[in-house]
């Protein structure tokens, strides 16, 4: 079963981390990611720039282009992981592991309906 782990946290806090905090968290997350990848459970994962870099297109007629994220919320969508696990219990276990490496905020565990791998875009990221 494919799940997306949607990472929510207060971006003001996360983007306030200093270099040491940042690399500490990234190192710990890296270890968890490496293990999951080796087990064939982790697909693409990505981190988003802050919502200040976001633009929203409202599909009204005519479509409306707005600056900023879709919704003003206390916690923002900061990134996501795509995982392949047996069931929800295992998805929650993975989320717990990631959460231990990177405390604060929440993961929304959301089953996938469609997964298109698309082209490999890593060169430009």
């Amino acid at each position, binding site marked *: 079963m494919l799940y997306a782990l949607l990472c929510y946290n207060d971006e003001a*806090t996360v983007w*306030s981390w200093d270099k040491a*905090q940042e690399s500490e968290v990234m190192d710990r997350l890296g270890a968890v990611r490496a293990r999951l990848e080796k087990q064939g459970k982790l697909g693409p994962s990505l981190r988003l*720039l*802050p919502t*200040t*870099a976001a633009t929203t297109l409202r599909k009204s007629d005519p479509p409306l282009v707005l600056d900023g994220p879709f919704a003003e919320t206390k916690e923002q969508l900061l990134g996501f992981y795509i995982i392949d696990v047996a069931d929800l219990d295992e998805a929650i276990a993975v989320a717990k592991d990631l959460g231990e490496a990177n*405390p604060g905020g929440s993961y929304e565990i959301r089953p996938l309906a469609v997964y298109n791998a698309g082209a490999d875009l890593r060169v430009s990221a």
Partner: protein
Amino acid sequence: MSDLAWINAAITAARPQAVGALLRYFRDLDTAEEAFQDACLRALKTWPQNGPPRDPAAWLIMVGRNAALDGVRKRSRHTELPPEEVLSDLGDQEERAVEQVDASDYRDDVLRLLFICCHPDLPATQQIAMALRIVSGLTVKQIARAFLVSEAAMEQRITRAKRIVAEGDADFETPGAVERAERLAAVAAMIYLVFNEGYSAGDNPARAQLCGEAIRLGRLLLRLFQAEPEIMGLLALMLVQHARTPARFDAEGQIVLLDDQDRGLWDRGMIAEGLALIDKAMRHRRPGAYQVQAAIAALHVRAPTPADTDWAQIDALYANLERLTPSPVITLNRAVAVSKVAGPEAALTMIEPLADRLSGYFHFHGLKGALNLELGREAEARAAFGRAIALANTAAEAAHIRQHLDRLMADHHPTVREPGAARG
């Protein structure tokens, strides 16, 4: 990350909103700051036990307000608020407490707090010190280290600045549209001052940290005013410039010129964010000085090698900038682009009329020296570099010019300059 580190990050992020709201309640900066300090102490005690609250800023405002009101006799017009022990992570209670904080005031609270720091009677350095102390929450010791003064001197400076602000008439009414725009422009300028203080710091890490702080404030401001292209431009400008920091100094702390920088050391994440913001800003078709400067900086970082730099476009953008905000420093910067497009002779002709107004400006003499050097006019070059050294602001600047002079002695003709070195 440890509990303490997490709490610190949350408090830092919540600070502008919390202190801003407390300032609105108490209309006194010292009381607001003390209330916030109290709330932080309680957070350190309560959050590790009860878990972090869902909305740290609202929690700190509530608890800070309670703490400050405990000191005086509680007045009846203030609503009783739940004690902080039940505030943390208890859904219903917290939701209600949060509702008592008027969310619509948030934007104006933070803007007011920032605006207070750029009081027109405060000299630039005091504006920066105030912003760092009050909005960013740096300690007096940290700020003193950044400015290379004693803690006592900095304490005195901040106290004096606070007195000036307190004597002035801080406006606590909700600002109108025109006022809001004026405040926004003043605050943007103050944030860029903070950035420049860090950017020009050479390799002094305490001061270089101010760049990161300014970027944080820029993001905060843009979150509040999401559709303002100039705020996008300001943040983009700071990000793209700061992205080059790891390459700007060598192991000995000497300046590495833009052309000589290892572009692999540039922070690609910051550049991506900066370029995305410039893209967004351009859509508004309301150009401003920050946007144009950001676009110039973007052209530099978009070039895979120095030779790929689009100097003609940079020249055109500087022409734009001269029109938006005429200043001899901008003309001086444009001359660098002109020297690449039309040659050093044309650039020298361009800066000649600036000699009077920029006679005390390090970068004027530095560029004049470099242009003369390119033309093989060694005596003129040596004279200009001599003037530049006398006017250098940092040891790194002086050392950089010294290198030119040394190479001159060795009869070697370098042709590299840092075009971004003289910024308007």
